[in-house]
């Protein structure tokens, strides 16, 4: 078990954003955190990484309590891909090199440079290597952010809406990449996601949040119409296509 979460609670202005969240993630697994807007998906991800301080509960990474770890130690165990990255006049190579920050004091070793080079090659980003990230498209920038997370060499990736604002091809490329690296290296990923169908296609497990609590969780292939309908409040149909379930949203009845 890579990640284990017990009874996690997070309050904002004494209002409970997350209530008693419990779940765990195994090696080689991709978990999709799903749910409507504003339900606390991103907050949950930030609590796992201690970007936000949880009010209650434990987060164990590789059986170590993150409460007893400083930020650098946490950064060696899990990497975080934010939804919005600020850009600077920095080459992709240097931006990715930042991922080595938890492992270096100040001086960059040849080993660090080699690792960045290896990740760039693995992700086929050679053509972007010396391009400034402030001149990149959204898809390119997202690939750089993911490369930065890979070069951190952690056992767990936390990705906040990795494919929002990206076109179909970039979505497929980026999630395909995450899936490939997770399976090849036997590490894990937790992603918050909007699009149910991409979640179905690229993750192993799902976790539905509603009003800050877990509404349902399980194997992604076992998502039921009933569950989706009650979380999102819209009728859906689930079809099978090439071995993957596909969710088709229906019409909203004019009840309101």
């Amino acid at each position, binding site marked *: 078990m890579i990640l284990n979460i017990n009874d996690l609670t997070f309050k904002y202005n004494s209002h409970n954003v997350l209530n008693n969240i419990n779940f765990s993630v195994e090696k080689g697994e991709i978990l999709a955190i799903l749910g409507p807007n504003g339900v606390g998906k991103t907050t949950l991800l930030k609590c796992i990484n201690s970007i936000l301080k949880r009010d209650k509960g434990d987060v164990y990474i590789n059986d170590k309590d993150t409460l007893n770890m400083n930020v650098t130690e946490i950064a060696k165990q899990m990497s975080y891909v934010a939804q919005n990255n600020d850009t600077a006049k920095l080459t992709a190579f240097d931006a990715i090199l930042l991922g080595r920050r938890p492992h270096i004091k100040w001086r960059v070793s040849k080993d660090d440079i080699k690792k960045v*080079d290896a990740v760039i090659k693995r992700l086929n980003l050679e053509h972007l290597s010396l391009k400034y990230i402030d001149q990149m498209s959204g898809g390119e920038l997202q690939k750089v952010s993911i490369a930065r997370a890979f070069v951190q060499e952690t056992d767990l990736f936390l990705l906040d809406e990795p494919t929002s604002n990206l076109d179909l091809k970039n979505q497929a490329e980026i999630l395909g990449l995450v899936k490939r690296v997770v399976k090849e290296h036997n590490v894990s990923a937790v992603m918050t996601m909007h699009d149910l169908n991409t979640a179905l296609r690229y993750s192993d497990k799902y976790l539905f949040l509603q009003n800050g609590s877990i509404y349902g969780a399980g194997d992604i292939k076992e998502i039921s119409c009933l569950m989706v309908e009650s979380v999102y409040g819209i009728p859906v149909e689930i079809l099978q296509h090439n071995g993957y379930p596909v969710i088709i949203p229906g019409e909203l009845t004019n009840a309101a």
Partner: protein
Amino acid sequence: MHFDDGVLPAEYYKYIGKKIIFITIALICLVLLFVIGISVGAVQIPFIDVVKSLAGMTVSKRFDIIIFNIRLPQVLTAIVAGAGLAVSGAVMQSVLRNPLGSPFTLGISHAAAFGAAFSVMILGSGTMASSISDAVAISNPYLTTFSAFIFSMIAALIILAVSKLRQGSPEVMILTGVALGSLFTAGTMLLQFFADDVQLAAMVFWTFGDVARTGWSEIFFLSFVTLFSMGFFFMNAWNYNAADAGDETAKGVGVKIERTRLLGMIIASFVTSVIISFVGIIGFVGLVAPHMVRRIIGDDHRFLLPGTIISGSLLLLASDIVARLILSPHILPVSVLTSFLGAPVFIYLIIRGKRR
């Protein structure tokens, strides 16, 4: 997980090499300008005599006096003050995540001006003497300097305190700085309104920043503070790169971003307060020098910081030399020139509208 099949990419090293070449060239220019800066002025000293005098071989007694009592302190002050202002500006821009971060835009300079005016009027200290001015040299220069320093630190601390209340958000720091700037400007105007002619002259004279008012002991103190801050900023170069990537990403790679922001602001404010209180208000060096270097070698602070330090020195030293020559035999305060130079660059940056 591990990635072990990488090599050392030649292209990347070439790119890094270019940055190092830029910094080296800037350094060579600075050395040349150092000699020129000592050479030119009301009395021209040939370059070769400058080098000889500096090496301890007395060419003439008169040259020695001019060099060691007037020119060398002035040139060194320009180098140290330019470096300190520029590097503080670069760090403020990074930790505030705003291209307008600088001591000038954050109201720290205005607070210093108020402090000086306060000292002249209320504490009755007058202003310090400058070798470029024979006008209003009055009683207690140290009190004026100290008062300017105290008020600029007060401004910096208020900015920090307010932002602490709001979880260190960059917007809060900037907005507070703008508000304080206008508050202290109003305070200065109030004092000026009630000042008599001599006091008014002293206040206005103080705000004309120039690098000719420092003696050797002040230079040693300035250098010590500036070097200390540079060391601190260098150590944090990676943290500033992380800050540029956004708070969440920074935390994700193990950077305590709030602490980086707070300490960066404290040290940067402290250095600029010290510099401003010794040389008066010198606008735009802290804003323009980092932006010039950013355009050429990018935002990687491992190279940006040394590049900015050297460019800041270059900018202020060059401005000072031009200020000495432009209306010769009259000598302009260098701040007039830096502001003339800085304003167009500032507007250019706004028009380009690049969000960092």
